[in-house]
């Protein structure tokens, strides 16, 4: 046995090298294909994620839960201090709640007076977060809703309060949400109350910078930032966060969504904004038969 091993290795050596060369060429070929025809390969990637990640789901939820329990347990050490803080915050919150209730009633009254109908098409699908990107360089999440639930690339994902990211990559049962903090994320926003338009550019930090402000002097820390809907990609008016200034004097965004606890996300159905395509036309009564016209005129007179 020991003897006939050596010649067989001599024989398989070149074969192995050939196999290795073919393997490396295949891998580089996939990479080049991705570089040339990215959408097709990205669709393939979405399909792979769609097949692989749901297989992990049975284990992912319990393990994630367990790790979170351990983390929470560690925080018990500071429980007294936390309790005090929470009580104080609760006291403040009660005051805010009272204010919010009054405002809600007032708002409802005013809406009633104006007879406003809010956009009935702005509905959402809620999905559970299954996995994250798995890499420290990319910020994304995988949701358990996909093309089966009618999810389309480009729709906005929110938690209860603020914008979280946008759908990019949809499989049959899963969809990937690229977070606002990812370095490829660009969202057009408006800063209220000054009405300045800007772009929120993800840069892999927890507070993405606000770029391309027309007049930075009009923007103050604490201003509200909402989506502008420019470019027709996103619905307008979704809360994103508040402006904050970093020590370098650069305007950054403090996100409203609670990024530390993203469990359920709402994906907003967006049917696109209608645009005006034709210039104004002459408004004239529709041409009608002569007889009918004379009869109606008679009737009027």
């Amino acid at each position, binding site marked *: *046995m*020991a003897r006939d*091993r050596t010649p067989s290795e001599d024989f398989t050596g070149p074969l*192995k090298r050939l*196999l*290795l060369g073919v*393997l*490396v060429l*295949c*891998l*580089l*070929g*996939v*990479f080049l294909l*991705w*570089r040339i025809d990215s959408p097709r*390969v990205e669709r*393939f*990637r979405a399909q*792979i*994620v769609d097949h*692989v*990640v749901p297989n*992990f789901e049975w*284990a*992912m939820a319990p*393990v*994630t839960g367990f*790790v*979170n329990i351990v983390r929470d347990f560690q925080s018990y050490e500071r429980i007294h201090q936390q309790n005090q803080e929470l009580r104080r915050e609760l006291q403040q919150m009660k005051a805010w709640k009272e204010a919010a209730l009054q405002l809600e009633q007032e708002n409802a009254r005013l809406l009633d007076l104006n007879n406003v109908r809010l956009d009935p098409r702005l509905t959402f699908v809620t999905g559970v*977060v*299954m*996995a*994250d*990107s*798995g*890499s*420290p*360089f*990319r*910020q*994304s*999440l*995988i949701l358990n809703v996909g093309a089966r639930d009618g999810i389309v690339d480009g729709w906005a994902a929110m938690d209860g309060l603020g914008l979280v990211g946008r759908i990019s990559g949809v499989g049959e049962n899963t969809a990937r949400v690229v*977070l606002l*903090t990812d*370095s*490829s994320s660009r969202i057009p926003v408006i800063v209220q109350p000054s009405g300045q338009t800007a772009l929120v550019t993800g840069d*892999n*930090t*927890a507070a993405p910078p606000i770029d391309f402000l027309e007049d930075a002097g009009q923007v103050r820390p604490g201003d509200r930032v909402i989506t502008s809907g420019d470019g027709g990609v996103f619905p307008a008016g979704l809360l994103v966060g508040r402006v904050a200034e970093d020590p370098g004097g650069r305007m950054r965004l403090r996100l409203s969504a609670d*990024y*530390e606890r*993203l469990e359920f996300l709402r994906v907003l159905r967006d049917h696109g904004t209608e645009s005006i395509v034709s210039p104004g036309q002459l408004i004239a009564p529709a041409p009608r038969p002569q007889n009918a016209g004379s009869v109606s005129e008679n009737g009027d007179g």
Partner: protein
Amino acid sequence: MVERDRIRLWSLRMAFFGVCVVVIFWKLLPLDALPRAWAGPDLIVALSFAWVLRRPEYAPPVLIAIILLLADFLFQRPPGLWAALVLLGSEALKSRAPLLRDMTFVPEWLTVTVVLVVITLSYRLIMAVLLLDQAPLGLHLLEMVMTLLAYPLVVFASAVVLGIRKIKAGDAESLGLRT
């Protein structure tokens, strides 16, 4: 005898695959959505290098290629590039394995360091030449350093848990007799 060795061979290959799948699984867990200022080690690369230097038959190139391509697809990296570079790196290590076999751990660690630095830099270089979006350099270097620091632990763990040790002169004979 032959049958038992074949079972051991395939079970250890499966173990390699299984450990890599567990690593991928762990990284995919949605524990933190906030961007981190640090990066963990790339354990799959450390594991492949350690096994290739010790028992290359348990970590064949096809298996490494499949696992890394899967990781590329799942972790949103450009598919194929990192896999190809790691595969080339592991082959470079494999060709030096006979030299390193009789030395201590330090020269082996240095060789792994050189290979990892070369493939990391060429990865970034290729990405830069093709004008692709790159991760921050500091974060990437941190990941590389963490991988290098994790390498001895990976070697230790695979020796203790799965019995992956270097082939010594005496072992080679017994191995030859058994197969």
